[in-house]
């Protein structure tokens, strides 16, 4: 039976936004407000995107809690956290505009927790020198996505739910739309657009242990790559220090950094507060000297007053805490199920339940653990990709005309390691900018019609898996990919492992080409996974090749065979692009930071 579909529906917009998490919604709202006709496509139902899982807060130097905070200190913290590999202009724009974006959300109906004098409350987080994260308990992402969703719907823009995009449409050098299928029917759909914004999030589903939802299959990264855009810094994959480790079904599930922000203590199986031993020398002075100084800091936080005590060692940056936990476990000081202990139970139970309500629920319901009476077992989990589509800081424009990117799918903002809370602010700031950029671009160009060849090819690609008889099961292939990435391209890397990984990824790619799918096209998860696997394979190869190329350790990229930072690599972004069927890997010079900004970092 031929499954090729001759009939398909077509929609035309000035701006097509792919992805309806925070960045996509924010971009769509802005483009619509600029007068563009906007279509917003999402793989899931509206409001279910990964942003909903963000917990701890959105970083913005509102200076409501620490009055001496400013965009300058936020910029400094971000650059230091990113090991100076960040695109300085993005980090600057981000720090300067985040407060306005947060206040704007409040004007749109978001209800953040309050300070005693009635303003937006801010909590401390790793790598932030001041309490900076506006939050709603530990469900900040839900608050943000609901606020943006309501705003977007009220603005009247077109939302296309449960629609997967498999290919960007191009005309010579320009992106002119996208093609995909409805998940509920399997029917093909074509979107014509003058500008396309990618806001598809990350790649975490390529790993076995991840905090990411199934949607995080690197779709936007792969679509951009296939359309000829450049990806940068793909070797930088963030492993969040605290994911659940038990029971097996929830391994990797995020335990918010807010637990540590509120005073959570990390200990190994010898009851040793091991983070004292892992603080990097150059930032040692920013952390407490003793347990009692750290306790004084937690106490002051609880009472909402200023203190001269410095923050606890658990609030070191995520790359550092993850390596510490991994090392403790590897050296035999781990917990029963291969993690370490995170304890907040020394605080009053009602405080824990109020500040961390969903963590309380999550552990009680999924692990049978009461976090107000005992410690949690946690370990590192794949959480975020710093690398992504190379974009212009001002407009979000990629290196491919007509294609824009914002949020996690875009690269550069976070350098070699992202600070907690900087993702929610990133997606607001650069979502807004990409919306402006895409709408302005759309005004300048005429619509273009996709060629019939491209449409026919997309149709054939969709139908192909039903015609294969190889016995290759998409779920099994996914499991093999995850095992490869987890064991060979994880927290600690070596040239040998990376070379093996690249070889295995080649084998998996060959298997993918003959993947076999059964059943109907309507809501068929095995068929859906097939297209996501293609994207994950592209992203995984980009991560492994970039990681092999960067012969140094920096931020989230730790090479056992090159344990130190290398000054030459400090000035380079890795660059991945498509060269026919081959992946080309190289590097380009990091943009030079102006002297006045450099002074903010090293006065």
């Amino acid at each position, binding site marked *: 039976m031929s499954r090729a579909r001759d009939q398909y529906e077509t929609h035309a917009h000035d701006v097509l936004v792919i992805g309806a998490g925070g960045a996509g919604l924010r971009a769509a709202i802005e483009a619509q407000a600029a007068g563009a006709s906007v279509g917003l496509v999402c793989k899931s139902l*509206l409001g279910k995107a990964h942003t909903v899982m963000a917990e701890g807060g959105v970083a913005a130097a509102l200076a409501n809690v620490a009055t001496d905070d400013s965009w300058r200190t936020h910029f400094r913290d971000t650059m230091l956290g990113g090991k100076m590999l960040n695109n300085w202009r993005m980090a600057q724009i981000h720090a300067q505009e985040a407060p306005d974006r947060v206040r704007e959300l409040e004007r749109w109906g978001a209800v953040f927790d309050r300070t005693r004098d009635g303003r937006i409350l801010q909590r401390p987080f790793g790598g932030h020198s001041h309490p900076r994260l506006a939050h709603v*308990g530990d469900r900040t992402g839900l608050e943000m996505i609901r606020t943006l969703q309501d705003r977007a719907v009220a603005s009247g823009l077109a939302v296309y739910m449960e629609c997967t995009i498999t290919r960007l449409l191009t005309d010579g050098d320009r992106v002119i739309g996208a093609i995909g299928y409805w998940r*509920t029917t399997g029917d093909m759909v074509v979107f014509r657009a003058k500008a396309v914004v990618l806001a598809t999030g990350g790649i975490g589903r390529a790993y076995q242990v991840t905090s990411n939802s199934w949607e995080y299959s690197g779709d936007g990264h792969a679509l951009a790559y296939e359309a000829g855009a450049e990806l940068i810094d793909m070797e930088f994959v963030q492993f969040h220090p605290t994911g659940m480790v038990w029971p097996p079904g929830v391994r990797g599930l*995020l335990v918010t950094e807010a637990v540590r922000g509120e005073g959570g203590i990390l200990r190994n199986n010898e009851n040793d507060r091991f983070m004292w031993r892992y603080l990097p020398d150059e930032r040692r002075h920013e952390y407490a000297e003793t347990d009692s100084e750290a306790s004084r800091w937690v106490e002051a936080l609880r009472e909402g007053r200023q203190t001269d005590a410095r923050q606890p060692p658990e609030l070191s940056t995520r790359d550092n805490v993850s390596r510490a936990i991994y090392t403790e476990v590897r050296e035999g000081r781990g917990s029963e199920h291969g993690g370490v202990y995170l304890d907040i139970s020394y605080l009053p139970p009602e405080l824990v339940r109020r500040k961390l309500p969903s963590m309380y629920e999550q552990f009680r319901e999924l692990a049978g653990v009461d976090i107000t009476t005992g410690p949690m077992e946690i370990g590192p989990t794949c959480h975020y990709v710093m690398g992504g589509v190379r974009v212009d800081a001002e407009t979000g424009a990629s290196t491919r005309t007509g294609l824009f990117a914002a949020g996690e799918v875009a690269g550069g903002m976070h350098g070699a390691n992202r600070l907690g809370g900087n993702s929610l602010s990133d997606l607001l700031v650069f979502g807004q900018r990409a919306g402006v950029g895409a709408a302005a671009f759309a005004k300048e160009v005429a619509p273009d019609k996709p060629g019939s060849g491209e449409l026919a090819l997309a149709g054939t690609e969709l139908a192909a898996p039903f015609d294969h008889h190889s016995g290759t*099961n998409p779920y099994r292939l996914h499991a093999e990919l995850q095992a490869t990435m987890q064991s060979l391209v994880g927290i600690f890397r070596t040239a040998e492992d990376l070379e093996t990984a690249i070889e295995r990824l080649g084998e998996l790619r060959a298997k993918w080409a003959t993947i076999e799918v*059964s059943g109907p096209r309507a809501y068929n998860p095995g068929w859906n996974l097939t297209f996501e696997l293609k994207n994950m394979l592209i992203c995984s190869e980009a991560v492994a090749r970039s990681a092999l190329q960067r012969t140094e350790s920096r931020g989230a990229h730790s090479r056992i065979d090159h344990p130190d930072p290398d000054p030459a690599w400090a000035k380079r972004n890795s660059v991945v692009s498509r060269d026919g069927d081959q992946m080309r890997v190289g590097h380009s010079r990091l943009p030079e930071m102006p002297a006045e900004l450099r002074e903010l970092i090293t006065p």
Partner: protein
Amino acid sequence: MPVGRTHRLRHLRVFRGTPEDGGELVEYSVPVQEGMVVLDALHWIQANRAPDLAVRWNCKAAKCGSCSAEVNGRPTLTCKTRLSDLPEDIPVQVEPMRTFPLVRDLVTDVSWNYEVNRRITPFTPPEDAPEEAWRWQQEDIERVQEFRKCIECFLCQDICHVLRNHETRNPFMGPRFLVRAAGLELHPMDRADRTPYLKDGGGIGYCNITKCCTEVCPEHIKITDNAIIPLKERVADTYYDPVQVAWRKLFGRRSEAGSGQPIPGQPSADGS
């Protein structure tokens, strides 16, 4: 998924099918690991027995509200329903939400909810409020924050007998959207009046406070007591309190920003 320390099997009876073929319950035996939830079992079936089993899910952390289904007849999130909490002597029965039209297997068409949501007047703050007006005490917003915890799993809509049994042909927005309306009405800066809409377009009167919605809410929102009853009182005060009625006749009412559009016909699992 590797089989854990034990090879104990649990039996599931999972609804498979479409509106066209009517569907049937299909039995699967699934090896059990400690802490396993119903969604884990469904994933095992997808990977090992039925690669095209349709299940809607996203976060697997009870934060997105996608994986709603009826397990042993009870509306629940499959990602937080542990197999060990279900009776061992009978198969675990997993069926789609009954109130919404079936798409395939465990997936239903919940688009009606999005249509209803669009009819609610959005957040409407005063345009010229000074910065200081945006200061509130934590106590003043705790109720609003309770309503904003909603993850839109639509389990309350599924269990609500008014919607489930089509008890009225008139519009009824259902508990989820009464919660949203309550969150907007109680927001310290909101200036819209949704009372007329709640009464007519939204059909708040059809709720007879059986509290089924509150019982199934995975976020433990006290839907009936904290959202619906206060809204009902607001409607009653406006329309049935003689003093209010006289006042309204004399001085007119507050700004009434309701969209005025009726909500669409109610969802129907049998396609009618």
